[in-house]
């Protein structure tokens, strides 16, 4: 029962007016739309790249573009489509739609969402800023500006991407852009997992979860595990380029194949990170327009999990021609074929739903869904073909592979995104799209797509290599390329028509009702466009078809203290959706925008070696960071919390597994754990598996073991701190936190001193470089834990915690446990394993 008026709820949740108000807004409906609009922008830029590429290839021996420009275009096209469009667009849809689907009011960490989105936008703009000198040079020929556009492909294999062959800042722009996209991606993944697991409507058990939410949950876990691989890889490459550490230089014990391993440990799951949410969208659109529930819900969920899991065992299939042992690549070939099974399960589920449909509503979203099924099946079949090692050897680096992955990525990702956008547009904007324009756009895109990419299979089989700016006329490939280019233009015209449709609908589209598709799902029980609080009354879910849901009523109520109307919603249990408490969400703040901005300035300044600017920007980031993390008195005491939820007798200060913050910490540490595991993999790969690696250093483990013991003591002290505050003993909390800081400081000092005394030569030996990087990363983790402990200590001193409110102390304990555990692994790898292996 809502005890506050609709107007009061609207005032609490509305987006503040004016430009500054928009920059301060953290409401998911607003930030989700900003995220979508920015990914559209990058999609458009990347689309221009592809049209330019196809124009160059239209006829043999064309000299419209130079080889260098061609390299740059296919690099920006691939990078932007992968990092600035596909994954972010799906995350943007999730940020907008998940709270609606889950029956909650917002994502759990709205400021984190806003930070993610601004970071993504600044990162994308910084990446594309590399093209500005080229544009100036084009307008003013002969200007002295350097060429800065990334030019080594979206995979940036060394040695091509190393400073020797790429001395400019081109690759640094690429690495920086990737870094931004990865940070944003991981933050969004944490947010999505916590949303799906902890912020569902009461009664929505995992077995009643909408398939899109399942797909986002699975995908977000895949992001947490896989994205760190590219963070590790890009860190190594930047360290090699900037400081000369030889991770990928075989002459000094490095190995360029290490980059390929790390990149594809990320890169292959990345395909499924795009594909799985896209299938989730299809599984929402198709049953709604086929007027029947999805056939085989359990099998589809199982297929999602299986696909995500197996996607981590496929990375070597991008390296079949790299000279690895046949049996090894055989394992990955087998896994590559196995993954066709779960994809097939999903396909049969969609077909079964269609075949048993009482009536199919043949509108634009359904057209795209049908096109997706047909195209993806073709792309999947060619995928099984290239999973066969001998076939791959023949077609590797030919246009056959280009055709294959465009069938998978355009057919399997872009088509479902188009279906999802046409389906959810009325909910996003409150306006209906024009079916006639939508239909025309669809047919142009579909025909253009097939005209563009179908001939590329043939061209590839006839020997057309990838990544070449032109080809001789005698190869006889002109007709296939001309058809491809014509198809690209037709497809571009289709997308243009869709763009016109979207803009026109905002201008003069018919107003949409709450449920224009007569679809099941909680997103359709609220007005279109969705109000800023999404669900005024939190629904009580009683089945998979959620149209029958009734408003949730608290079992017991309690008098609520007078206070403001908070942005609040319910927290539920992860498995069965039982109500556990109230989550009061953070309000609007300029801090996320300001932090993203300073983060960008620091990165750009470091790129151009403007260290003073970087220092100033770092200092400038402190006030917004403190504002973000240091709640005001009212935000701590939360007078009036629960009023907009019917004043339930529930706690607004959840701790432990009932707290969203605890889950976010756990997931962040899981991602850091993945980073650590990949760094250890890299160390062992160079130290033991590579026969030309430099001799492994055999240091004494005594000092490092003492550091591990000290870190364990720090974790123990933070455990004591937690038990003290649970008993309401604030001075005991402060003393124990102080002890953990002292122990952590001592551990960091011991580790650092030992490292300095080892006499490592990271510029001369890849093994030493790996040793130093891993060990100093461990020291950085200790410093981070110290900073967090110090901050929480300051909060404890300011009386932020008591026996009911202490989740931050629990998070400190998790952090110290992680640091102690990771240090034990690092020490075992660096200091103990050389004595054993």
């Amino acid at each position, binding site marked *: 029962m809502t005890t506050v008026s609709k107007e009061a709820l609207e005032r609490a949740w509305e987006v503040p007016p004016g430009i500054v108000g928009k920059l301060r807004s953290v409401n998911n409906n607003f930030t989700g739309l900003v995220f979508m609009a920015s990914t559209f922008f990058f999609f458009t830029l990347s689309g221009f790249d592809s049209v330019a590429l196809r124009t160059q290839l239209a006829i043999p021996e064309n000299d419209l573009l130079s080889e260098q420009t061609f390299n740059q275009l296919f690099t920006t096209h691939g990078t932007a489509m992968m990092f600035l469009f596909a994954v972010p667009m799906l995350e943007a849809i999730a940020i907008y739609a998940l709270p609606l689907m889950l029956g909650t009011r917002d994502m759990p960490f709205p400021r984190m969402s806003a930070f993610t989105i601004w970071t993504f936008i600044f990162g994308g703009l910084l990446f594309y800023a590399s093209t500005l000198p080229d544009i100036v040079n084009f307008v003013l020929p002969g200007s002295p500006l350097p060429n800065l556009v990334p030019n080594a492909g979206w995979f940036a294999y060394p040695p091509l991407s190393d400073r020797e062959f790429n001395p400019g800042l081109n690759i640094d722009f690429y690495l920086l852009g990737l870094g931004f996209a990865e940070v944003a991606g991981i933050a969004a993944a944490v947010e999505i997992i916590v949303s799906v697991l902890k912020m569902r409507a009461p009664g929505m*058990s*995992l*077995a009643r979860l909408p398939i899109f939410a399942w797909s986002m949950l699975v995908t977000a876990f895949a992001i947490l595990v896989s994205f760190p691989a590219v963070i590790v890889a890009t860190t190594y490459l930047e360290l090699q380029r900037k400081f000369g550490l030889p991770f990928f230089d075989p002459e000094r014990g490095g190995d360029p194949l290490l980059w390929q391993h790390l990149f594809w440990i990320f890169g292959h799951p990345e395909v499924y990170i795009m594909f799985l949410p896209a299938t989730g969208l299809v599984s929402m659109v198709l049953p709604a327009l086929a007027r029947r529930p999805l056939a085989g*819900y*359990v*099998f589809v*969920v*199982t297929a999602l*999990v*299986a696909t995500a*899991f*197996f996607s981590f*065992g496929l990375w070597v299939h991008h390296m*079949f*021609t790299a*000279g*690895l*042992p*046949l*049996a*090894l*690549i*055989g*394992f990955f*070939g*087998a*896994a590559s*074929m*196995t993954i066709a*099974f*779960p994809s097939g*399960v999903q396909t049969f589920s969609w077909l079964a739903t269609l075949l048993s449909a009482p009536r199919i509503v043949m509108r634009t979203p359904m057209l795209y869904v049908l096109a997706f099924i047909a195209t993806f099946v073709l792309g999947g079949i060619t995928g099984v073909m290239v999973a066969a*090692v001998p076939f791959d*050897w023949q077609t590797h680096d030919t246009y056959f592979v280009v055709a294959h992955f465009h069938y998978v990525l355009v057919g399997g990702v872009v088509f479902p995104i188009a279906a999802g956008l046409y389906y959810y547009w009325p909910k996003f904007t409150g306006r209906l799209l024009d079916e006639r324009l939508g239909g025309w756009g669809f047919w142009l895109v579909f025909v253009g797509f097939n005209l563009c990419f179908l001939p590329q299979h043939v061209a590839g089989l006839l020997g057309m290599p990838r990544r070449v700016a032109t080809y001789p006329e005698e190869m006889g490939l002109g007709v296939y390329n001309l058809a491809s280019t014509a198809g690209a233009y037709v497809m571009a015209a289709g997308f243009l028509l869709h763009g016109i449709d979207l803009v026109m609908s905002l201008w003069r589209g018919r107003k949409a009702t709450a449920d224009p598709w007569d679809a099941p799902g909680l997103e359709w029980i609220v007005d279109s466009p969705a109000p800023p609080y999404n669900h005024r009354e939190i629904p009580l879910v009683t089945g998979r078809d959620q149209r029958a849901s009734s408003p949730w009523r608290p079992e017991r109520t309690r008098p609520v203290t007078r206070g403001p109307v908070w942005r609040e919603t319910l927290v539920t249990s992860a498995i069965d959706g039982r109500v556990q408490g109230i989550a009061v969400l953070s309000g609007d703040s300029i801090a996320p925008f300001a932090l993203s901005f300073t983060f960008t300035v620091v990165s750009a300044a470091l790129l151009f070696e403007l260290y003073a600017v970087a220092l100033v920007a770092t200092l400038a980031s402190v006030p917004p960071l403190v504002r973000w993390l240091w709640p005001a008195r009212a935000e701590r005491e939360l007078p009036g919390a629960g009023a907009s939820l019917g004043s339930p007798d529930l706690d607004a200060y959840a701790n432990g597994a009932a707290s969203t913050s605890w889950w976010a910490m756990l997931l962040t540490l899981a991602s850091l754990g993945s980073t650590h595991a990949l760094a250890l993999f890299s160390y062992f*790969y160079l130290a*033991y*598996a*590579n*026969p030309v690696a430099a001799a492994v250093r055999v240091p004494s483990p005594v000092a490092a073991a003492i550091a591990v013991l000290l870190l364990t003591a720090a974790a123990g002290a933070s455990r004591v701190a937690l038990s003290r505050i649970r008993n309401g003993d604030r001075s005991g909390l402060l003393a124990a936190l102080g002890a953990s800081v002292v122990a952590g400081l001592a551990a960091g000092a011991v580790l650092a001193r030992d490292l300095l005394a080892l006499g490592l030569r990271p510029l001369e030996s890849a093994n030493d470089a790996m040793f130093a990087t891993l060990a100093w990363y461990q020291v950085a983790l200790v410093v981070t834990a110290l900073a967090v402990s110090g901050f929480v200590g300051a909060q404890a001193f300011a009386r932020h915690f008591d026996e009911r409110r202490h989740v931050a102390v629990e998070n400190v304990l998790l952090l110290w446990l992680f640091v102690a555990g990771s240090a034990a692994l690092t020490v075992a790898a660096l200091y103990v394993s050389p004595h054993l292996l």
Partner: protein
Amino acid sequence: MTTWFAIAGGLGAWTAQLLASYAVLDFGCTGEGASAGALVLPLVLISVACGGVALAATLLAVRRATGARGATRGLYLGGALLDSLSLVTIAFGAVLPLLFGPCARG
């Protein structure tokens, strides 16, 4: 614990086979004094052990699904699917070193 084994035991076994076989092949085929013949036995043992675990998980999941209803039944059916898929992949991976010889290169 048994529930988790029934649901994810196969995936765990496949992961173990992949990682262990990867380590054996990468270390065994490139280290000093590498002998391809000596690698066959460990590879077969790894595959048999992992296949056994996946098979046990599949059988357990099927057995539990038979007696269950509703969401629980779905959970075990899903587990049985995952386990059996893992078993097939483990079998694929087991045959390949025998066909090619562990250290043959393309």
